[in-house]
């Protein structure tokens, strides 16, 4: 049996002396979609960055496809997992195509230039999110939603099996949110990849996730989406009475 794309055991995550969660154990297999849900300041971004290896855990272990993350060279990590940050900061002018080509970095030797194949991968990724016509545009001139879709194309073009996304739906209108997450979920299912997403929209978590991590008050609970996305649990997590609307993948939660 193949090892899971991501396995974390007894994970304690913290930042600036504050413990955000303890004894978290998850196994993310190929084809799965995970959502991390919780109130502001609960540490969702820090948990995601810890899983990505960008900050070390306080305790516990993380394995990517069976290999301990701590002992993986940075370049190998970059071929095993891709990260979508919450926001992009563009200090210099760069075309959308060049910004997606940057995602090919871990696949190239230090002296190599991007090959025609890398260009094809980048253009195909831009096309997945409907922004291939913007390839030559300076990313600093794009709208927030266009920039976000270019960033999603970067994530896809890195071709890492594990994709870690911090609020992928931010800046996107409701139609673009569903189009983008449909494309990502399909990539996960058909290419043996997996998604772990920090999501604020509970309806998107219900629609796409098959597993959910609830994070808040210094603790984390992980489990099946059906069990975790429950009005009682979510009301306690967000300290606000919530009621469920709709059924199954089309349900959401609104304040009472």
């Amino acid at each position, binding site marked *: 049996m193949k090892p899971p794309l991501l396995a974390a055991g007894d994970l304690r995550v913290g930042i600036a002396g504050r413990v955000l969660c303890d004894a978290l154990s998850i196994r993310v297999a190929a084809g799965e979609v995970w959502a991390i849900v919780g109130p502001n300041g609960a540490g969702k971004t820090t948990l995601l960055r810890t899983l990505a290896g960008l900050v070390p855990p306080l305790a516990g272990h993380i394995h990517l496809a069976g290999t301990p993350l701590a002992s993986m060279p940075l370049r190998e990590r970059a071929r095993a997992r891709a990260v979508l*940050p919450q926001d992009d900061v563009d200090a210099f002018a760069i075309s959308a195509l060049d910004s997606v080509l940057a995602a090919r970095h871990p696949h190239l030797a230090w002296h190599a230039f991007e090959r025609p194949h890398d260009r094809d991968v980048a253009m195909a990724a831009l096309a997945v999110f409907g922004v291939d016509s913007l390839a030559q545009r300076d990313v600093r001139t794009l709208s927030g939603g266009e920039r976000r879709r270019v960033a999603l194309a970067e994530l896809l073009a890195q071709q890492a099996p594990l994709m870690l996304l911090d609020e992928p739906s931010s800046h996107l209108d409701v139609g673009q949110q569903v189009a983008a997450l449909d494309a990502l979920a399909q990539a996960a299912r058909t290419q043996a990849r997996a998604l772990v997403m920090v999501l604020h929209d509970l309806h998107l978590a219900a629609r796409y996730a098959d597993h959910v991590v609830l994070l808040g008050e210094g603790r984390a609970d992980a489990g099946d989406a059906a069990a975790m996305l429950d009005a009682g649990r979510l009301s306690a997590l967000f300290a606000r009475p919530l009621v469920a609307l709709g059924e199954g993948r089309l349900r959401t939660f609104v304040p009472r």
Partner: protein
Amino acid sequence: MRDPLTPARTLGIVAIAALASALALVAASMAGSVHVDFASVLVALFGGVPGSPDAAAIVLSLRLPRALCAFAVGGLLALAGTLLQVVLRNPLADPYVLGVSGGAAVGALGAILVGAVAFVAPAAFAGAVVSTAIVFTLAGHRDARASPRLLLTGVVVAAGWGALIALILSVAPSAQVKGMLYWLIGDLNGAADPRAALAALAVSLVASLFIARSLNRLARGPDHAEALGVDVRRTALVTHGIAAFAAAAAVTQAGSVGFVGLVVPHALRLVIGNDQRVLLPAAVFAGGALVVVADTLARTLFAPMSVPVGVVTALVGVPTFLVLQRRAG
């Protein structure tokens, strides 16, 4: 915007910049109180039909060595500026903002003040290195990604050097003050041996090309770079190390020639884009050519007087940059 960079386009751009440098060096060899024509310069350089021995002597022992010093200084400063702007992700960064030239100036002026004229260059180099070390220690070099703190520390340390420079100028005997001022503005009078500066330039450029593509990633932030497999801390430290060494070598040769490190990379970025694999070598040749031309003007415009090259780099560079910036906008 332009297409992604290819090896062919890189070679083309660098070849054009190198050609511009070569033309600037030839022009510098021709111009002066005794005019040497183009053919005589080529004869002096490459031999062939015996030319005028006087022309050959002027070119080979006076003008070309000084022009090569100017080229090395311009290349070093432009390279240091390009590296610092990328690693600090701030187009306002340059070697002098971080206090490198201030430290060098205190070293050099101190040596002039105590009459140790032979030690001006080593004292300048030591001052530049000490200043860099102070900035890194105070800003916490372990956290090489904390660029705003590094920049701010550099600016404050530079202000401290400025106060020391003012102190030295006020206590120095008036006979020494003009020499000190020339050094502060940046001056190539008396520059005769370009070998050390050229060697420093070659080493710095080659070293920086090894990390050029990693620098492209770093230009978009440390997290972005690390997520793509770049060792951010090591790359940042190597980059700062090369930039400090290059700036120290330039300042040691010519004093604090301003403006080149700040504006050459910025202007080039507007024309050829921000891919460090082409920007770094192109900046070396463009910065070199700029200072060669500026120094040639500095010693011929007001002949027989020779003004400091730093005055001319700013006078030529400022309008050029403003026009470029306006067109790009």
